[in-house]
């Protein structure tokens, strides 16, 4: 179900500028479908980042974020060749992890 994300990470000195595009419907629970029924709440609840297996970042997110969101943050102390993995988990328990090697793309 969960579709791949697109992770972009650019090294500027020892600061890593990370931008992550995630494919997710991000339903607010307030929208109605064509038949007038409420579309159930469905949103990304947590986003975590790990650098070489070590947690470096966690965010608790709400339904106020748009569909197919982009998420950006800056990370200090990263270097080329590091493995950066991002995981999101949504309120239905669905999750997705993608990993990139810093400086490879």
């Amino acid at each position, binding site marked *: 179900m969960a*579709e*791949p*994300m*697109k992770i972009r990470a650019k090294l500027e000195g020892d600061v890593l500028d990370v*931008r992550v*595009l*995630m*494919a997710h*419907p991000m339903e607010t629970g307030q929208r109605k479908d064509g038949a007038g029924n409420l579309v159930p709440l469905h949103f990304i609840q947590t986003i975590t980042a790990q650098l070489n297996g070590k947690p470096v970042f966690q965010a608790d997110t709400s339904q106020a974020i*748009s*569909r*197919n969101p*982009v998420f*950006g943050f800056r990370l200090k102390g990263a270097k080329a060749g590091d493995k950066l993995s991002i995981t999101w988990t949504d309120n239905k328990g669905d999750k997705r992890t993608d990993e990139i090697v810093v400086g490879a793309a």
Partner: protein
Amino acid sequence: MTRALALCAAAAFIAALPVPPAAGQSKPPAVERDATTEEFEKFRAVLEADNPAELFEVKGEELWKTPRGPKNASLAACDLGLGPGVVKGAYVQLPRYFADTGKVMDAERRIVHCMVTLQGFDAAALAKQPFSTETRTPDPVALTTFVAGQSRGMKIAPPQSLPQERAAFALGREIFFYRAGSYDFSCASCHGEDGKRIRTQQLPNLTRPEQAIRGYQGWPGYRMTGGVMHTLQWRLNDCFRQQRFPEPEYLSDSLTALLTYLAVNAKGQVYKGPGIKR
């Protein structure tokens, strides 16, 4: 919806502001530019850096490479005009004539043809709901987005060497100027003169090369309203709906002809890849 309304309100406000006089009158008079257009372009530039269309490119690539359908085949043998499996640069060289079908085909049409012949998908089923909704992106849309992304930064160069390709262009031109429907409209009513607009949206004159690119650029495009991915097949379908024409058939000869007309008019311009639309 609220966001779209807020955006319209903001745009209307910007339009009401006085336009600063252009310094030195250096801009060509053919392409009218104003504050509203420039604001939209800034807005788009910010969003282009992280365009969700890329998610559909990734998905389309996966669909392209995975063995699927009743025949459990991938699209690796699909010939988009540059030989079986060659995707790079194919999008900007379409529509073109294909001897195996005896027809001129545009990108999406050719991709669907490959899905039907190579993978065994049912053409009628694919044509049933060909356009994206908030909850569903049809496979041909993601595949077309992937294929288009493989022509990023290349010049638009649809071939016109064969009589069939020239005939498609001629037919497309005829459709472009054909007035009919309850509004007595044609494509040219909105897109055949400089400086036309719908509300705050400036309309390119698609008969001129330097503006025709604006009809071709940015498609397939990610629409922020609703967060859906659309291709040129959808764009043209919606243009006909807005003109109150009967809905054109998905992947029909007429749409290919019209796309040929647009592509040839935009020839030589650089294609920037899948875009983002408000």
